[in-house]
């Protein structure tokens, strides 16, 4: 008699959450220990508790909020402008053949330019203050948004469009009630790409030229060898990235309830 074994056993996935938590905790403890023992000098890598302490100090003194507010304004303004323009352009490109014929080569030509390379030009056009920083973030968000929206519009199931027309829908209704919701999952994928891009461009623009903002803070802390302060900036950026991902996921669950995310 030969019993049948589960031959798929080696492919089964088990719950590893405990291991994840232990690994993260272990890394922080080891890092702290290395710092205290003097093996790693704090000026190169300050231990986590020192970073936490500095963070608490900067919150208590209010020093961090000026930088955070400046950065948040730039990123929210740039992201909003860029994504709205990207969605509109993407729908137009996907739905109207004239727009597609005119717009596609222009977008294909501009898309490969690293957007940070446009900052000097934008400073020339818009000045050195907020507008050029907002504009570079908006441009960085615009391109993933326009491409994702366009792809989403083009991939809406044609049978849904036929169903809508069969039930009496005209052009406006088809765009509003079929094309837009049909493209929404791809639009959300664009939001996620754009969120990463906007954080990158924010920091780059602020390092190049800003008195306030997280990028400026990190840059000047580095110049002054204030490594602990620099680390606080990095932690805040990480939290900002996590928060935006979390907010987008929450919004997605709300707006795309049919997706069972």
């Amino acid at each position, binding site marked *: 008699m030969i019993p049948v074994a589960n031959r798929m056993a080696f492919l089964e996935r088990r719950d590893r959450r405990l291991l994840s938590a232990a690994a993260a905790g272990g890394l922080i403890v080891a890092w702290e220990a290395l710092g205290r023992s003097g093996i790693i000098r704090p000026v190169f890598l300050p231990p986590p508790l020192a970073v936490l302490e500095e963070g608490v100090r900067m919150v208590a003194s209010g020093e961090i909020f000026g930088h955070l507010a400046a950065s948040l304004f730039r990123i929210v303004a740039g992201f909003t402008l860029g994504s709205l323009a990207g969605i509109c352009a993407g729908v137009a490109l996907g739905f109207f053949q004239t727009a597609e014929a005119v717009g596609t080569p222009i977008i294909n030509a501009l898309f490969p330019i690293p957007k940070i390379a446009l900052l000097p030009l934008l400073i020339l056009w818009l000045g050195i203050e907020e507008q050029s920083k907002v504009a570079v973030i908006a441009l960085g968000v615009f391109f993933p948004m326009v491409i994702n929206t366009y792809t989403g519009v083009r991939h809406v199931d044609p049978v849904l469009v036929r169903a809508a027309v069969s039930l009496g829908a*005209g052009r406006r209704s088809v765009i509003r009630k079929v094309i837009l919701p049909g493209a929404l999952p791809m639009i959300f994928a664009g939001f996620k790409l754009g969120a990463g891009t906007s954080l990158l461009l924010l920091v780059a623009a602020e390092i190049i030229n800003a008195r306030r903002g997280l990028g400026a803070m990190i840059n000047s802390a580095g110049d002054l060898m204030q490594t602990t302060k620099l680390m606080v900036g990095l932690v805040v950026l990480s939290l900002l990235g996590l928060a935006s991902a979390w907010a987008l996921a929450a919004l997605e669950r709300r707006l795309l*309830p049919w997706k069972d995310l």
Partner: protein
Amino acid sequence: MRLVVEDVSKTYRDRNGRPVEALAGISLAVEPQEVVAIVGPSGCGKSTLLNIVAGLMPVSAGRVFFEGAAEGGRPLSAMVFQEFALFPWRTVLDNVCFGLEEQGMAAQRRRQAAREFLDLVGLPGFEEKFPHQLSGGMRQRVGIARALAVDPHLLLMDEPLSALDAQARALMQVELLRIWERTRKSILYVTHSIPEAVLLADRVAVFSRRPGRLRALLPVPIPRPRDEATQASRPFLDLTDEIWQLIKAEAAEALAEA
């Protein structure tokens, strides 16, 4: 109201730009309260004809018109799709409401009307579900309710049960008989299944392929109301066999090409 299809031909271009004749010289009519089923092998253009009647595709030659329908009155037709074509982002109730929205009906009234049609198709209590939460048979009930809700002169059904498993299909055939008894809609019904056509229809249009031509238009001499037991009756079996003999050779051809 009477649908008239007059000498309709359809030629389209394939991917290589070569003309393909899908339909050639089709003439047929659907009388008030009549169910006409179109059967034929793959590639006989039966779905093409349905799309033309729905106004979703232009004819190459010929005419399609509705006699005795008033301009700006009830919609001429509404379609039920093989793929269900429910809007995945709309709940069951909002799917059924879609056409009524387009007609400009007030929200309160259209929700009321949609509920009545969901009752009619045997789907009460699922209003707030999303399509992906339903089985295939239930989804198609929504598709039928959605098309009936706009009160079209003619219901177009494009292989509505082909995506269902055999058991769901058998149950839905009987459901369609029941729904027809309640609504008495004119229906143009496309199907692969000869027994389904004979069970549901008053007349069966048999198409041949490449190009699609009307080969025979056979009345179904079986009185209504019909039910499951109809499928065991002598006239049912005779007619299904007669139709099968008509298309058997071409069905085999289609199989060999695919």
